[in-house]
């Protein structure tokens, strides 16, 4: 080492020491900020205990369980047909999609299979509830970032989809339409054409969101590069659904592990985005909503004729055994592990909900970000409280 470099090194050490002294003098205590349980950004009762240094988040810990309703336990004291009313309320925005994996698991144990027409209508309803669910996210992300208007458009257009679900199932929010061995009813007259019209409207809504938010510079500034979740981390935390696909993982249970619904009989595309940031998560969901409208149209085109109910006994008893079925729900992988002892009701039900895993990444991703970014990240991870706590 030459003399000059020693000199500069000494100067460097001196400035470091001075900086350290100032830091000690200026050090202030951290502030604990409770985001929630009553906070608009947690859309429900999630609590984020955040440790702040000024506006900088040092640590953020999600605290769950404020909305625990004990559905796993409640399911044990109900008969199989009764359980669907309960699990409708897990992810309350995409209710029908909650029923499907449970019914499929029960069907697998009973070794019955719903007729093709029932499977297709199930798939249509599944995609409709996906659209109803995710379209609200598309608007809500705007309101979380301060743009008030998109969420009203989302509520307006989601209503059309809910109307379609209602006119088919009778339930706007909680259809309770799926039965072991098929469906409660066939589709009413005129429903197919109406649904086609609604799908066109929903595509217009997606274009509108693209104009309002995706193309907006401020939206880009708030979302791009915020809350980046690399592929390995996303996989490590067991994330699923659009959150995982936004991290560049090409994984979709509808395509990869189709449990018997009509997804494998139509053409469709799994959207992924390599970035893994909040913007990517929004973009993937936007594309998926658009894709889902095309899927519904294709499903309506190919809808087979026939009965919607298989032959099942009047009193349903599920033979002894265990089954796990999971599907790609609007929020991610949702699965039911059913243990049956041959009774009228399940002996034990374990519900695997996507939001629980998706939200568990918060401490990892909300480190060294600003308070507004926490809101962006929470909004883009898109959880539903009922789906976290069930």
């Amino acid at each position, binding site marked *: 080492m030459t003399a000059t470099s020693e000199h500069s090194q000494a100067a460097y050490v001196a400035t470091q020491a001075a900086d350290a002294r100032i830091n000690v003098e200026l050090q202030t205590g951290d*502030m604990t*900020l409770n985001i929630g349980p009553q*906070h*608009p*950004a947690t859309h429900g009762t999630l609590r984020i205990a955040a440790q702040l240094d000024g*506006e900088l988040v040092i640590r953020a810990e999600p605290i769950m369980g404020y909305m625990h309703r004990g559905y796993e336990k409640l399911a044990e004291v109900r008969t199989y047909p009764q359980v669907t009313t309960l699990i409708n309320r897990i992810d309350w925005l995409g209710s029908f999609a909650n029923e499907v994996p449970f019914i499929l698991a029960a069907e697998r144990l009973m070794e019955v299979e719903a007729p093709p027409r029932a499977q297709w209508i199930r798939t249509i309803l599944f995609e409709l509830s996906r659209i109803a669910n995710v379209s609200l996210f598309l608007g809500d992300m*705007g*309101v*979380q*970032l*301060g*743009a*008030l*208007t998109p969420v*009203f*458009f989302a509520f*307006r257009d989601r209503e059309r989809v809910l109307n379609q679900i209602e006119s088919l199932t009778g339930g706007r929010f909680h259809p309770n339409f799926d039965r072991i061995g098929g469906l409660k009813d066939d589709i009413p007259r005129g429903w197919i054409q109406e649904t086609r019209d609604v799908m066109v409207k929903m595509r217009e809504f997606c274009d509108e969101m693209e104009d*309002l*938010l995706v193309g*907006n510079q*401020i*939206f880009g*500034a*708030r979302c791009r590069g915020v809350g980046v979740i690399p592929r390995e981390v996303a996989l490590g935390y067991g994330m699923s659904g659009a959150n995982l696909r936004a991290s560049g993982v090409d994984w979709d249970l509808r395509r990869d592990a189709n449990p018997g619904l009509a997804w494998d009989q139509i053409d469709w595309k799994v959207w992924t985005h390599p970035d893994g940031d909040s913007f990517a998560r929004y973009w993937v969901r936007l594309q998926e909503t658009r894709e889902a409208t095309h899927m519904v149209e294709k499903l309506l085109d190919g809808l087979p004729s026939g009965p919607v109910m298989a032959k099942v006994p009047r009193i349903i008893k599920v033979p002894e055994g265990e089954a796990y079925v999971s599907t790609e729900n609007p929020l991610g992988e949702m699965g039911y592990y059913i243990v049956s002892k041959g009774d009228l009701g399940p002996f034990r039900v374990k519900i695997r909900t996507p939001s629980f895993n998706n939200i568990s990444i918060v401490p990892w991703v909300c480190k060294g970000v*600003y*308070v*507004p*970014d*926490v*809101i962006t990240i929470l909004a883009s991870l898109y959880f539903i409280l009922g789906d976290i706590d069930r």
Partner: protein
Amino acid sequence: MIGLVYWQETAIKLAVILGVIPVTSLILVYLFLFKMMAFMQSRLGPMITGPHGTLQLIAEAIKFLQKEDIHPDNADKHVFALAPIVVLMSTFLLYVILPAGPDLIVEDLDVGIFYALAVSSLSALGVLMAGWASANKYALLGGLRAAGQLIAYELPLVLATMGVIIQAETMSLQGIVHAQANFSIFGLDSGMPFIFTQIVGFAIFMIAAQAELTQTPFDMPVAETELVGGFHIEYTGFRFLLFFMAEFGTAFAFAAIASVLFLGGWSLPFVDPNENWLNFVGPGVMLFKILILAAIIFWVRFTVPRLREDQLQKFAWKVLIPVSLVNIAVTGLIKVAV
């Protein structure tokens, strides 16, 4: 004009200001917050109370008055109570120098625009007081954000007006109106507003005013979805109403200042500004211009998302201030050359 004793004149002026502020904020709230926002969002807005919901505001005001006046246990009582008054006071003081006609002005100060910008930043003090005294972490964050933001945006606001002042050669708002009434450009005779020459200054002024008024995209001090209302989170009833009135009253005042600086205030093109009938037409002309500018302010508010605090500071210091300095330099050069 009419011979009045000093105290009579003062009493009339006071009554005018006290009457004008609630009325203007009511107009803005009803027109923009209730109706324009609703129509933009495919809703109807209030429709039940009165024709097209016009009486909704009265109902809201009565609702606020009925509410219990709650203050938090740990709050600094006196500061907590004083804060909304300080904020509203800055709004009141702004109205003193707003001209509405050749003789319609409460006080035509020689340093009018300087005074306006000075008293408008008083509201930052009130907001900081509210944020600190509420004994609430969200309120504290909101108050500090507001303080930082108002300091950052005060500068471009001042610099944006400099171009106009250089052109008008006066700081009095009446003087600026008269300067525009006699200003000709593009071979058009007179009464051309300064927006034709000061379009950059106008843009900067409107952006900075947006931040000063804490409207989206610069509404981090309030940020409903992050800070749940920020500095006014703990305020209820009448005190909240004061904040609310101050917000819209200040929006009106800033739109008025912008319309005076850039759109010619109460003057009309090709009309001699000393005509007496302008005292009757002037307020209408002024209101028309103010509503156009306020519509722009609220249009932006309802449309765009909110920036982050650091992005906002960057925008102020790296974009707005250099651009406004260039604007001043160019205006000065042209002024000297022509």
